[in-house]
């Protein structure tokens, strides 16, 4: 039975990949139980990893990966012009994820990396999140994205709801999972300042939060840094903690200066 919320037209989705591991795309293919239903709801017109046909008209652009080349910027602008909705997938696209680790190293060698002939090699720039180049309508966070969250964002968009991404920190979900806190186990954890939605997966598996979903909406950074310092870290270590997934934001002004001087 068709509900009143079903859109009259099947929205066309296009999936674009920048510097990434393709794990977020794979998570879409990993929706084994839902994929057939999903394909009734939306049409993938561009999804290189899974489909040969390409379409140039789309309603929602999904973007995976960090911006690391000038060519990416042109490409993103072209996508933004076509796509009514632009959604990023995963940590690389926002806040910058593991590709951002290289930003910390670029400072030693700020020059361009140009190699090869004219066959299409590009200078590598600072790794940046997609919304540093174009406006983005929603971010699906995580490294990789969570299947259920992807599906719930897609359904929300289809029926015209705000994507249901939590703004509160990971600790909320971690306590609900009844985990022993990493700090009580003598480890550190970025849970108190990191956006939830993962179900506190890493702490639940005896690990700790590394911050892959980016900062929570309302983090108390100064109190948290004081907590880390109380646990034996110095300012540099604290930065190294953030840089793992949040290399663009954590480097702050430093990163921006490099971008300008480039």
């Amino acid at each position, binding site marked *: *039975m*068709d*509900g*009143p*919320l*079903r859109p009259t037209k099947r929205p066309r989705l296009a999936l674009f990949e920048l510097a990434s591991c393709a794990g977020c795309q794979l998570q879409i293919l990993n929706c084994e139980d*839902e994929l057939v*239903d*999903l394909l*009734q*709801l939306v049409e993938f017109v561009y999804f290189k990893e899974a489909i040969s046909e390409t379409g140039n008209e789309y309603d929602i652009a999904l973007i995976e990966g960090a911006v690391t080349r000038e060519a990416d910027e042109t490409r993103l602008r072209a996508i933004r012009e076509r796509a009514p909705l632009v959604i990023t997938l995963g940590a690389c696209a926002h806040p910058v994820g593991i590709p951002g680790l290289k930003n910390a190293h670029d400072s030693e060698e700020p020059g361009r990396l140009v190699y090869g002939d004219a066959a299409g090699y590009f200078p590598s720039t600072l790794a940046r999140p997609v919304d540093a180049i174009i406006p983005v309508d929603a971010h699906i966070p995580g490294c990789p994205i969570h299947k259920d969250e992807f*599906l*719930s964002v897609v*359904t929300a968009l*289809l*029926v015209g709801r705000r994507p*249901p991404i939590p*703004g*509160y*920190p990971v*600790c*909320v979900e971690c*306590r*609900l999972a*009844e*985990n*022993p*806190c990493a*700090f*009580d*186990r003598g480890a550190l954890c970025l*849970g*108190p*300042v990191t956006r939830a939605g993962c179900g506190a997966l890493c702490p639940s598996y*005896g690990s700790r939060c590394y911050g892959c979903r980016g900062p929570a*909406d*309302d*983090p*108390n950074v*100064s*109190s*948290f840094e*004081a*907590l880390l310092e109380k646990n034996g870290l110095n300012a540099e270590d604290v930065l190294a903690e953030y840089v793992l997934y949040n290399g663009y934001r954590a480097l702050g002004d430093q990163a921006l200066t490099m971008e300008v001087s480039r």
Partner: protein
Amino acid sequence: MLDRMVPKADLNRFIDRLASEQTVAAPVAEGPSIRFQAIRAAHEIAEHYLPTALPPSKYLLPVKETLLQFRLGEHIEMEPVLEAPEVIVFGIRPCDLHALALLDAIFIDDKHDGHYAARRRRITLVGMECLEPCDDRCFCHSMETLEVHANYDLLLTDLGDDVYVAVGSPKGRDLFAGLTGAREALYEDRTRLRRAHEARDAAFTPRLDVSFDQLPGLLAESADSLLWDVLGEKCLSCGACTNVCPTCYCFDVGDELDLDLATGRRYRTWDSCQLDAFAMVGTGESFRKPRAMRVKHRLNRKGRYIMERYGRQGCVGCGRCARACLVDINPIEVFNQLKGQPASRTVR
């Protein structure tokens, strides 16, 4: 109702049998954390345990609970979901029994919340008395929640080889009827129980500098205390304190749609007044934006608002929030500091 006395070994055998026939939940140690979870045998129950990671209220107000299910279409079909599994919760501490009594007063007596009531009807509460303090974070003695006289089906006291069983309801009496080895509690059993209570009372010392019924007044006077600002700077707004609290029950309500965009559910999930978006309205304005206001709100709820509204302790002194808080915000210290300099603008 007549109390019973039972050798521990018989009790354990009885639990083994119960657990093989129906759902029995009890505190179980999972690494360093202790949780109420379903057990298969008595030996799984943690020996000495601090209050569990989440309080037993999770059996009455699950972390996420479906309220309605619906199907959209030409006609909207919807029905309430009143799920209520039968479960015996074993080993509830007195503080938590007090907290459950508060929830009963709110959700059943005051709100007639069918979802809560349905679960409550099908749950059996077996308490376990505390004979010594958990640690330096608990202050049940000061909140007068160490002793419990109602709102349990059975209450156990560990007297060494034997367990004294106070029967609190016909449900508890019937549950216990099948226990072989139990006998009626006699005068000397009651004497042993009294001695245990005396020893207990000596072991617990007051932690608060005020009596619990003075807390509402103290907090009302302390509305302008600078201590709130100090705490606001420290608080991470991580929501740990409210999630672990047995008397916290605030929730959020939301809808979920299946991929057919026609069937779905309305659910409620635990929420926290410590989070930024909790008091945000349609215009995006948050009525409790400063962290200091949020911390103050929580501690006022615990020490004052609930007491004023329902006449019961809004904090039962279990100490969970203090254990959970990474920046050591501890109600004992907060209340004592406010007491130290009431009405004045307290600074640490």
